[in-house]
């Protein structure tokens, strides 16, 4: 028993070390690479001593760092949101994007943006998050209704994808009627992107995501119980109603926050939790939740790096990259499930 536990802990430590290493490498590469390449020896100067050349300093502090912070925070949020939804639906391919929750949030944000931007020039982050949250909850409501009616989990996913399509269609419709000025902005946003993040945005998202994630972490114990199914969880003393409401709220807030700032981003919510669980060889929320967050951050840092450098100076939407990397993983999960029966 002691041996087994030691092996487990060793596995956790190694995974954490690898993730931390990846994080540092990607962090530096993100600062380093781009249309203007900043020397690695300057990076240190710029970050800690406000040194370096004026342009480099500006690029790093005004453009790259806030964007990276967004990838880190929102990537973590997305992956955590996916993990919570997978727990909720007891389905490994549930996630904010496939269930149409991201698209619902996107639709509401688009509507609010078009309405507000036609009168004022800016929209506050708070309003956007609120709009996204309302949209996410509406989609979630539909998904829950469907989940109640159908037993088969594949049907749940199919209906989620349908809801997603409907929302996207309406979003496109709304954008068509938007002002010329806001169209450019809206268009890149609605396809998913971390670009154009300001420090003000970062501050807001950090607060929202941090609070939500900490609450989720503190719910590790009931989440672990819920993994055995609702009946057993109740028998262990979990207040099921309260717990389900909390899971829905937390995952919706996380997803809403991501969508409000970066638009819908696909597959991170499914791929990252899955990878994390297979690396750790456990589904214990106490360890999976923090590593999921870290993993999501790394995944999005990497994807954003690819999105902005691979076809530079043209930028890819972040979703195209996450889909290419994430979708095969999702297919893999489905095949594995099929094999298990």
């Amino acid at each position, binding site marked *: *028993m002691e041996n087994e536990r030691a092996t487990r802990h060793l596995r956790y430590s190694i995974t954490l070390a690898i993730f931390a290493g990846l994080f540092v490498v990607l962090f530096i590469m993100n600062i380093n690479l781009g249309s203007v390449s900043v020397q690695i020896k300057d990076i240190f100067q710029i970050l800690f001593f406000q040194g370096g050349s004026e342009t480099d300093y500006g690029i790093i502090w005004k453009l790259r760092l806030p964007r990276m912070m967004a990838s880190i925070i929102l990537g973590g949020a997305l992956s955590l949101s996916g993990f919570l939804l997978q727990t909720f639906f007891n389905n490994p391919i549930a996630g904010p994007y496939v269930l149409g929750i991201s698209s619902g949030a996107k639709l509401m944000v688009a509507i609010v943006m078009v309405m507000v931007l036609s009168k004022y020039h800016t929209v506050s982050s708070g309003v956007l998050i609120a709009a996204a949250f309302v949209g996410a909850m509406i989609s979630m409501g539909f998904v829950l209704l469907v989940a109640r009616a159908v037993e088969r989990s594949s049907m749940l996913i199919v209906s989620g994808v349908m809801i997603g399509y409907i929302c996207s269609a309406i979003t496109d419709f709304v954008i068509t009627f938007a002002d010329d000025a806001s169209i450019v902005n809206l268009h890149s946003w609605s396809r998913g992107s971390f670009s154009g993040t300001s420090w003000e945005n970062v501050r807001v998202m950090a607060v929202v995501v941090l609070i939500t994630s900490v609450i989720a972490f503190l719910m590790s114990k009931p989440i672990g119980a819920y993994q055995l199914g609702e009946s057993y969880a109740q028998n262990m003393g979990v207040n099921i109603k309260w717990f389900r409401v909390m899971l829905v709220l937390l995952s919706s807030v996380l997803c809403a926050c991501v969508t409000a700032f970066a638009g819908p981003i696909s597959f991170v919510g499914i791929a990252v939790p899955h990878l994390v669980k297979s690396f750790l060889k456990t589904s214990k929320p106490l360890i999976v939740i923090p590593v999921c967050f870290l993993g999501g951050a790394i995944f999005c840092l990497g994807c954003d790096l690819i999105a902005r450098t691979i076809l530079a100076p043209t930028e890819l939407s972040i979703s195209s990259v996450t889909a290419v990397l994430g979708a095969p993983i999702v297919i893999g999960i489905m095949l594995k499930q099929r094999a298990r029966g």
Partner: protein
Amino acid sequence: MGYFFYTKQLTVGYNGKPLIKDIEIQLGKGQILTLIGPNGSGKSTILKTITKHLKSIYGTVYIDNQSIDDMSNKDMSYKVAVVLTERLKTELMTCEDVVATGRYPYTGMLGILSEQDRFQVRNAMELVNAWELKDRDFTQVSDGQRQRVLLARAICQEPQIIVLDEPTSFLDVRYELELLNILRTMAEKQNITVIMSLHELDMAQKISDLVMCVKGEYITHFGSPQEIFQRELINELYELSNGSYNPLFGSFEMERPKGEPKVFVIAGGGTGIAEYRTLQKKRIPFVTGILHENDIDYQVACDLASEVFFEKRFERIGEGVYQSALQRLKSCDTVINCLKSYGEMNERNKELYEKAISQGLKIVESAEAL
């Protein structure tokens, strides 16, 4: 009320629709109650209501004189542990992890196991002989092992009542016996009350202190196994018209072959049972005799033979029954003699056999030859 667990006018059902009404259960500590009855009769519904997974429609369940309506899920978790029929879909959980979830009510905010908790987990797993499975993935173990792991999970929750829904469904005989044995031991040693549903009536008869028959709108019978396991009661409970229940064996015989019997089986002392069953399989109606009432052949013959010639227990076979058996023998065309030797009490079976030969009836060794 001296009972540890009781229900008062409990009505259970789904979506406000009553399925079974006025259920009155009274149980002491360390007693085993088994629910029997046909499929879909509502055994699971009752169990779910007792464990608070389903709201009662009317009436209340009391544990330790406290209504479960006044207890939170957390309060309940210290009193009642469950083993459910539903298949668990776990992901990357070892059997030990699954058992450890039973410690949930006792761990702190983040659910980290203490040494004491680990000790309890180990104890519970050893009790059900599942400790060697601890590092195996829960989805990779056999049905029998899975069921034992789930029982260990329930045990390490340190409940006062364990509720099990069809715990032996997927088990082979060995594990079934083992599981029931564990339950019996727990009930005795740790004074844990066990409430479960079972399909295996023979097991229910052997393990239970109390048995409840679930069928129809009301509970018809609730009592000791001796009271419940009666031929008519069980035949009626399961609506058996094509077979019948034998309370002494706790088992069922197939339908009696129909038609005019042309085969006479001379048997006794357990020699006839195999022949009777072979004849039943071949759907050949038969008569048999001359048996004693206390003969084991008599038990099966009553269910399978068209007619049984028998004598009172411990009595020499008398003239009366011999004559009527002889009459019947003459109307048959085939005789199977299972007896190799005769004793004082059944000497007349020998006479019967000799008469059959002299009558020129077809004599066969066994029913297989027919």
